[in-house]
C-alpha cells in the first residue's frame, strides 16, 4: 500500500507501547503517540526520529484527538485502564481497528481476573461496539521486539478478530514488527491467547526466561 497508515498508540510510554512504537515506525506508518506523561511520549518520539530520520512520529496530548486522526488504534495500556480509555475514544474509534494487547492478570501474575467465558478483548469489543477489536501482541514480551528471533526461531504472534480484513491488516503490522503472524480465529480465541501468556509468564518466572520468550508452532 502506498498511502501511509496513521496509527495512534495509546500508552506509548509503557514497555510494550514503546517497543511496538519503535518497531512499527520502521514501516509505512505515521505514528501518533499518547502517554499520560507527555514528556515521555515526546522523548520516545525524539528517540525514534534520532534512530530513523525517515520515520513520521509525533506525541499528542489527547488520546481522543490521536484516535480521531488515526486509521488504526493500539491500546497499549493495562487491562484495568482499558475501560476509561474506551469511554474517551468511543466515538472517534467508530469503524476503526482497535488492537487490544492486554492480558487481564491479577496482582500476583498467577491467574486472570476475567471470567472464563470471556476475555479482555471481548470486553473491549463490548465497550467499543462499532469498532473492529483485534487481539494482537499479547503473547509477546516487550524485549521480544528487539529480539523477535529467539534461539534461531522467529517468534509467532497470534491475531484474533471477528473482521477478516481487520485481522489481515493487523497481521501485516505484526510482520512489520518482526514477528510471524498467525491468524488464530475470531475474537473469542482471545480467551486462549490471554491464557497462553499467563502460562508463559508463569513458566518464565519458574525457569528464569528473563522476559525473553515466545510461542512457536512447529509444523511440517
Amino acid at each position, binding site marked *: 500500500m502506498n*498511502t501511509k497508515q496513521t496509527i495512534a498508540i495509546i500508552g506509548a510510554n509503557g514497555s510494550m507501547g514503546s517497543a511496538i512504537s519503535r518497531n512499527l515506525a520502521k514501516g509505512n506508518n505515521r505514528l501518533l503517540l499518547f502517554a499520560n506523561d507527555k514528556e515521555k511520549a515526546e522523548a520516545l518520539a525524539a528517540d525514534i526520529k534520532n534512530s530513523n530520520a525517515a520515520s513520521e512520529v509525533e506525541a499528542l496530548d489527547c488520546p481522543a484527538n490521536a484516535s*480521531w*486522526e488515526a*486509521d488504526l488504534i493500539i491500546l497499549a495500556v493495562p487491562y484495568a485502564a482499558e475501560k476509561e480509555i474506551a469511554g474517551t475514544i468511543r466515538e472517534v474509534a*467508530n*469503524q476503526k481497528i482497535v488492537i487490544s494487547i492486554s492480558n487481564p492478570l491479577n496482582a500476583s501474575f498467577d491467574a486472570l481476573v476475567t471470567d472464563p467465558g470471556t476475555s479482555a478483548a471481548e470486553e473491549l469489543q463490548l465497550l467499543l461496539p*462499532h469498532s473492529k477489536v483485534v487481539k494482537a501482541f499479547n503473547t509477546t514480551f516487550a524485549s521480544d521486539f528487539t529480539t523477535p528471533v529467539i534461539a534461531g526461531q522467529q517468534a509467532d504472534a497470534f491475531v484474533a478478530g471477528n473482521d477478516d480484513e481487520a485481522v489481515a491488516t493487523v497481521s501485516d503490522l505484526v510482520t512489520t514488527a518482526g514477528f510471524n503472524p498467525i491468524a488464530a480465529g475470531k475474537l473469542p480465541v482471545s480467551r486462549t491467547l490471554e491464557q497462553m501468556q499467563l502460562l508463559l509468564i508463569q513458566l518464565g518466572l519458574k525457569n528464569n526466561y528473563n522476559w525473553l520468550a515466545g510461542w512457536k508452532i512447529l509444523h511440517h
Partner: protein
Amino acid sequence: MFEVFLRSFNEKVPLTPEEETFLKQYLTPKKLRKKQYLLQEGDVCKHICLVEKGALKAYLVDDKGDEQITAFALEGWTIADLSSFFKQTPATLNIDALEDCELILISRPAHDELLERFPKYGNYIRMLITDAYVALQQRVVNTLHLSVDERYIAFQQMCESIFQRVPQHMIASFMGLSPETLSRVRSRLSGKK
C-alpha cells in the same frame, strides 16, 4: 463530528433521530492534516469521503510529474476515486488535503451493508451519484462547447467558494489550462468589467 454529513443527508432524505443513530454506527470519523494523502495512486480506494471541514483535491500525475486536478471537495461535498471504490481496482487518482480536514469516511463493507439494511442510504447515494453525474456531464459539455472565457465564468459562478480558497494555479490545472493562459483569461475578463 457528523453534523455536516447529517445535514446534507437530511436535506436529501429526512432521517428520524433513531435513523441518525443507526446510520452513525457505520461512519468513520477521520482527521487529515494539510498536504496529507487520503489516497495514493495504485492503492484501492477504500472509502467514500464526505467533508465535514476543510478542503481536498483529487488529481492525476502526468508523465512530467505535473498534477492534473480532476476535482475539489469542500464542506458538505463528497470525494473518492469512484471507479476504484466500486470496481475494487487500483486507483488512478491521488487525493490529498488542501487544508486541515475533518472527514467522514464510508468503507466499502459499510456501504454494502447500508445498501442492504437501510433503504434511505440507497436513496441518498443515488441522489449523490446523480448530482455528480450531472455535474460531470455539464463539465464535458462546457469543455466542448464554451470558449475558455465562458468556461471560466461558468466555473466561477458554479463554485465561487472554490475560487476563494484555492490558488489560481490549481484552478488552471482543473480547467486544463496553463497558469499563464488562466492569467490572460482573468485579465481579459477584468478588462471587460
